């Protein structure tokens, strides 16, 4: 199709899941929408790839944790082919002594834990309840667009006041715990709460997974609450049948079903600005597309600095965007396996769980110290899924694929990745072998994505998965910058709808949905 000089109601830049969600919502409302994706495939880091022929796995992100059911329903994702191979995927912390720990509130799991460590069983119930309550108190902030403060609009005032009410409803002990938890480190929190090293490490891992902070970094306890609050919308972690790419495929069908024109292999070169108003997009191919609303789901920094350009931005905003912290800390290893590796002590049903490979908290902290200094961590913490256990479409019968997230892998490593890549791989396989001694023999093929690979492959700067680190100065009304926080930008008609915006990363689709709703309401007002 010839694109030259076409007009639309909205142009969406970037075909990641948030871009697709935004485009679908806009089209559902009757808008003529075009979506531009620079690469040949949609989804960005939410995708399914082939490790080797017939072995399919979620290339980067591998679990659906935070996408609200409402988006699934609104966009009719089930009708468009989305099926879940597993819902409510449980978490099992693996132990080298083969006494694995299933983290759940199911009666039999708790009974098992109580036999093992009665103190921690009691503590876990209290901790889980409190975490749930704290997440619930924070949740309303995440459901809506980030509150605005100052100037004419004072919805931050309402938001803060309602936080006070919700905090009060928590009750005194729970509120006291929250106040101490918010600024504290996850390490101190779990040290104070649990006795079992495995339990401590499991919660610490969940708090820092994907972040460039250590378990004893102040503020990491908040990460856990924030993540739980995001996950709450979903009520459980799920594995899409066909891998994460299936989610994107359903979003694509949904969007196209609503009438979105999707153009892959079409990169935006710049956003056309006239007198402070975004008028359209010029593509790399030289086509000019015009629309009163332009939504960008690509990185806010790339959108503002590269596509809009410094000349159209205030200097303070530009330098803050340029400074925003992007420290990727997670690598991904995908393996094609001949047969299921044997993990002693793991029940057959649990092979489909989210498996955590954890060092002690102290070793985990030292891994962070290595990461900070650009070195490979000695002890690895990993999140492992074997999705083929529940999803036969991913590998030939009897064969499997394994997906491994490796925490605390630096972007730049001392000695260079060319020399260190194999060492890391060795260390990962070596660590996995401690639990599944036969794994090495079963590997048919594999691919490892280091932070620089993730940057190169998915355009995620610094190999950072969330489009901007999730830390307090880059959350809520500050994400990605105070001037850009509510999906609007200083340039009329330009909206940001990616994970770089509130409520952030984690395959939630919410930035896309909220930005689209905002653009629609602006359009009605105009």
């Amino acid at each position, binding site marked *: 199709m010839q694109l030259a000089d076409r007009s639309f109601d909205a142009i969406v830049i970037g075909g990641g899941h948030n871009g697709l969600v935004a485009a679908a919502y806009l089209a559902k409302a009757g808008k003529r929408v075009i979506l531009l994706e620079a690469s040949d495939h949609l989804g960005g880091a939410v995708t399914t790839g082939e490790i080797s022929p017939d072995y399919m796995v979620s290339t980067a992100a591998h679990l659906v944790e935070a996408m609200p059911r409402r988006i699934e329903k609104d966009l009719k994702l089930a009708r468009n082919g989305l099926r879940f191979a597993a819902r409510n995927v449980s978490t099992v912390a693996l132990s080298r002594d083969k006494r694995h720990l299933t983290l759940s509130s199911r009666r039999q799991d708790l009974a098992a834990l109580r036999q093992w460590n009665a103190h921690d069983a009691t503590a876990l119930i209290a901790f889980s309840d409190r975490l749930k309550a704290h997440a619930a108190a924070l949740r309303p902030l995440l459901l809506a667009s980030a509150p605005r403060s100052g100037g004419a609009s004072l919805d931050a005032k309402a938001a803060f006041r309602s936080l006070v009410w919700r905090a009060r409803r928590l009750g005194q002990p729970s509120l006291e715990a929250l106040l101490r938890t918010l600024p504290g480190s996850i390490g101190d929190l779990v040290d104070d709460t649990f006795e079992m090293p495995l339990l401590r490490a499991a919660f610490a891992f969940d708090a820092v997974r994907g972040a460039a902070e250590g378990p004893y970094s102040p503020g990491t306890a908040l990460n856990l609450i924030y993540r739980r609050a995001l996950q709450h919308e979903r009520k459980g972690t799920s594995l899409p049948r066909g891998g994460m790419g299936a989610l994107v495929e359903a979003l694509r069908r949904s969007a196209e079903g609503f009438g979105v024109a999707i153009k892959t292999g079409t990169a935006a070169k710049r956003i056309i600005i006239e*007198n*402070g108003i975004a008028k359209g997009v010029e593509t790399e191919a030289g086509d000019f597309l015009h629309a009163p609303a332009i939504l960008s789901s690509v990185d806010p920094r790339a959108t503002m*600095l*590269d596509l809009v*350009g*410094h*000349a*159209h*931005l*205030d*200097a*303070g*905003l*530009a*330098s803050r965007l*340029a400074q925003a912290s992007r420290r990727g800390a997670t690598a991904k290893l995908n393996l094609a396996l001949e047969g299921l590796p044997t993990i002693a002590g793991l029940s057959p049903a649990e092979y489909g769980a989210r498996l955590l490979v954890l060092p002690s908290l102290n070793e985990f902290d030292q891994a962070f110290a290595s990461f900070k200094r650009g070195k490979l961590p000695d002890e690895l913490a990993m999140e492992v899924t074997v999705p083929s256990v529940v999803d036969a479409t991913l590998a030939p019968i009897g064969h499997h694929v394994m997906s491994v997230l490796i925490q605390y892998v630096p972007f730049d490593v001392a000695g260079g990745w060319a020399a260190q890549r194999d060492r890391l791989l060795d260390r990962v396989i070596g660590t996995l072998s401690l639990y599944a001694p036969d794994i090495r023999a079963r590997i048919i093929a594999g691919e490892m994505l280091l932070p620089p690979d993730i940057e190169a492959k998915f355009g995620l700067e610094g190999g950072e998965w969330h489009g901007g680190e999730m830390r307090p100065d880059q959350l809520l009304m500050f994400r990605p910058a105070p*001037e850009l926080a509510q999906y609007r930008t*200083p340039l009329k008609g330009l909206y940001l709808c990616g994970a770089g915006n509130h409520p952030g990363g984690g395959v939630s689709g919410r930035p896309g949905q909220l930005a689209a709703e905002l653009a629609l309401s602006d359009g009605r007002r105009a």
Partner: protein
Amino acid sequence: MNGESDMALAEQVEPGEAAEAPDAAEHPDLDRLEATAEVDPDLFAHASDEPPFGRRVLTTPLHLSVAAESSTNLWTDWNGYTTPEILTSLDDEYRVLRHAAALGDISPIVKYRISGRDAGAYLDRLVTGNVMQLSVDEAMPVVFCEDRGFVVGDGHLFRLGEGEYRLVTEETHLAWLLDSALGFQVRIEDVSATLAALSLQGPHAAAVLNAAGFCEIETLRPYGARWFDISGMPVYASRTGATGELGYELWLDPEDAPMLWARLFDKGAEFGIAATGFALRELARIEVGIPRAGCDYLGAFTAVDPADASTPFELGLASLVDLDGGHFTGREALRRLKQREPRHLVVALALDFPEPIQFCAIERDGGIEGIVTSSGFSQALGVNLALGRLRYAASVGALAVGVDFREGLRVRRLKIPARLLTEPAIISPLRHTVPAPLLADY
């Protein structure tokens, strides 16, 4: 010298863009990301390795020449440099300014050289005015703001060549200039130490320069500038200066400066040239009503209380703000602020009172509504002129200034009626005359 120097910062651009730059060959240094120091520590450098607690105030290249003219031995500190407060007497110096030609050493003023492919675009985004309209060998008054629309600083911008500009300001702004340079191929150097500056102001200024060899200086229009060759010394002369008089500022190599100074005295004697000090410079700008950064207003990065920062509208610099041209930092904020009432105003006041006054409160109906930030006694008008900051709501009606005087060992408080001035108290008609007069009949 320790640490890296950032006299100059090259560009931060996307990889690849630097290579594509068409004029990269003409400006080979543009591609270098490392910075280079361009300071001669023997001159009056900021960045010398000399422990700063030793010599508290530095001297300018003209120090000896100026000192020779001082009969008062009265000195002050201007931007860290020894500067004469008064050389003979303020009254005499004032007469020279208004009736002959007043020469001053303005080397302590802060000067930045801004060059490179994107220099124009960079400056257009930096300042509130339209830099794209500035021709080569032309100057313009500028003000620049941060994102929220508060003034960071003001000064004059000179266009020296295609991609070469000079920004002259009262205070240092290197951090903000470099932070703003992100995304532009531009090089910013603090040349304060490598550029001497003289100011020659008064009705005979053109005549003196003409006699000193500045050929056809009279044809220079206000805010015009040009290179001159004065016996082998390259001198850049601009028709600028904050005095309300016909006047010029001369920019040249520090080593040549004493020679030019001597030559101007030599050739200007018949036109009544005399050296003048900082007090006269202050008085003259107060008469014209020009606020000075750090004195009459605080830059946005200096003001600890946000209420102490000012918008260009509050400084009376609205004419320097072009909201309809290209984007500049603070434009959206200023569009909003323009709709709102200013919080305060910088105002000029006339006080019928014969003695000099100091900082004091501006009052209305007995309440304190503002502060006098600078003042001086105008011989020409016979009144005290003052600049001050006044709450906007109080800027109508009868004002008074409360002044405390020491009488022996007692304090006497006077309430002096003050008049708000809406026009500059003094502007010489010669200021705009082209060609400028070359005869000494004024």
